[in-house]
C-alpha cells in the first residue's frame, strides 16, 4: 500500500471501532498520527465524538496487505457457480423442522 503522508510526515492509520451493541470491530476510516498512542487519541477525537464506540483498534495502513484488483478474477470468480456451498441448496428431510 502506498505510504500516504500528511504534511507533518505522519503515517496513515486504519481505525476500527466496536460499537456499544457490536460484537466486532468495524472499519471506520483512516487518519494520520505520529505513533500508535496518538493514533488512538486521534481516532477517539475524529471517530467517536458522537458516542459511536466503546473500543478502538488502530493499525498502521502499511501493515495491511490487500488483494490486488488484477487478481480479482482468480480470487473471486471461481466462487460464482458453487451453489452447493449455500445451505439452501440442500433438500432437508421432512422430519427436520429447524436447522
Amino acid at each position, binding site marked *: 500500500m502506498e505510504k500516504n503522508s*500528511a*504534511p*507533518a510526515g*505522519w503515517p496513515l492509520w486504519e481505525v476500527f471501532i466496536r460499537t456499544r451493541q457490536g460484537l466486532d470491530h468495524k472499519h471506520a476510516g483512516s*487518519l*494520520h*498520527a*505520529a505513533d500508535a*498512542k*496518538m493514533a488512538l*487519541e*486521534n481516532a477517539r*477525537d*475524529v471517530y467517536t*465524538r458522537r458516542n459511536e464506540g466503546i473500543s478502538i483498534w488502530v493499525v498502521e495502513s502499511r501493515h495491511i496487505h490487500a488483494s490486488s484488483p488484477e487478481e480479482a478474477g482468480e480470487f473471486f470468480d471461481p466462487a460464482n457457480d458453487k451453489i452447493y456451498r449455500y445451505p439452501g441448496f440442500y433438500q432437508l428431510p421432512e422430519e427436520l423442522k429447524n436447522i
Partner: protein
Amino acid sequence: MTPLISYIIHLADNALILGHRNSEWTGHGPILEQDIALSNIALDLIGQSRNLYQLAASRINVFSSRKESGAQEQHMLSGEKKLFTEDDIAYLRDSPEFKNAVLLEQTNGDWAKTILRQFYFSHFQLLQYGGLLNSREPMLAAIGEKSIKETRYHAKWSSEWICRLGDATTESHERMLNALNDLNPWVPELFAAADYEKSVTASGEGVDPATLYKPWLEEVNKILETATLLPYPAEKKAPVLSGKNGFHSEHLGYILTELQFLQRAYPGCEW
C-alpha cells in the same frame, strides 16, 4: 452577590475564556486530526462553562428575589427586570466583571504555547474539580463529577504533547522554552485565593487553590522532566495581575469584543 455566586462565575469564566481561545484554532490546526482534538476540548470547556453559568443564574435569581430592593444586581441587564439566564452572564458583562485567571486569556501564540497553557490549566482544573467532588453545594459536586472525566483527557492529551514537543527537534524544544517564558509569569495567580474563594473554602462549598499548588507542581514537573524541559520554579511568586478580581491583561477586551458581538449588536438574538 454572594461569595458562592462569584466563585461559580469565576469557575465558569475560566472555562469559557480558555474554551474560546481554543476555538480560535478551529480550521487552523496543524493537522486535521489535531484541529478536531483541540476543537473538542474547546467544546468540553464551553459545555462546562454553560453548566456553571446556569447554576450561577439560578442562584442570582433566588438571591435577587430575596433582597428587598433587589436593584443592585440589575446592572448586567441595564436595569430591566427579568430572570437572569446563562447568556446574560456570559454575554452582557464587561471585562472588569470577568473573573477568569489571566493565564487563560493569553494569546494562542504557536502550538507550543497553546499546549502549555492547556497543560498548566488542565492539571490545575483536574485537582480543582477533584476537590469539588466533596463540595457541600451538591450542584457544584455534580458539575465537578461530570467535568472531571473530560478534564482527565485534556490533561493526558496536553501532557503527551508536552513530551513530544519538548523532546523532539531543536525547533520544537526551542518553542517550548519560549512558551514557558511567556506563560510562567501568569501561573501564580491560579493558586492565590481571591476573597470569595476563601469564603467558599470556609463554608465547605469550594476549594482553596493554595492547597492545590504542591500536588500540581509535583505532577507538572514530572512531565516537564520527561519532556527534557526546565521544571516549573518551585518558589512561590506573587501574581502579576488578578483576573479573579477583575484585573485583566489587554487581551480579554479583544476576546469579549468577538465573543459578545452578536448579543451586543442584536440584543436577545437567538439561533
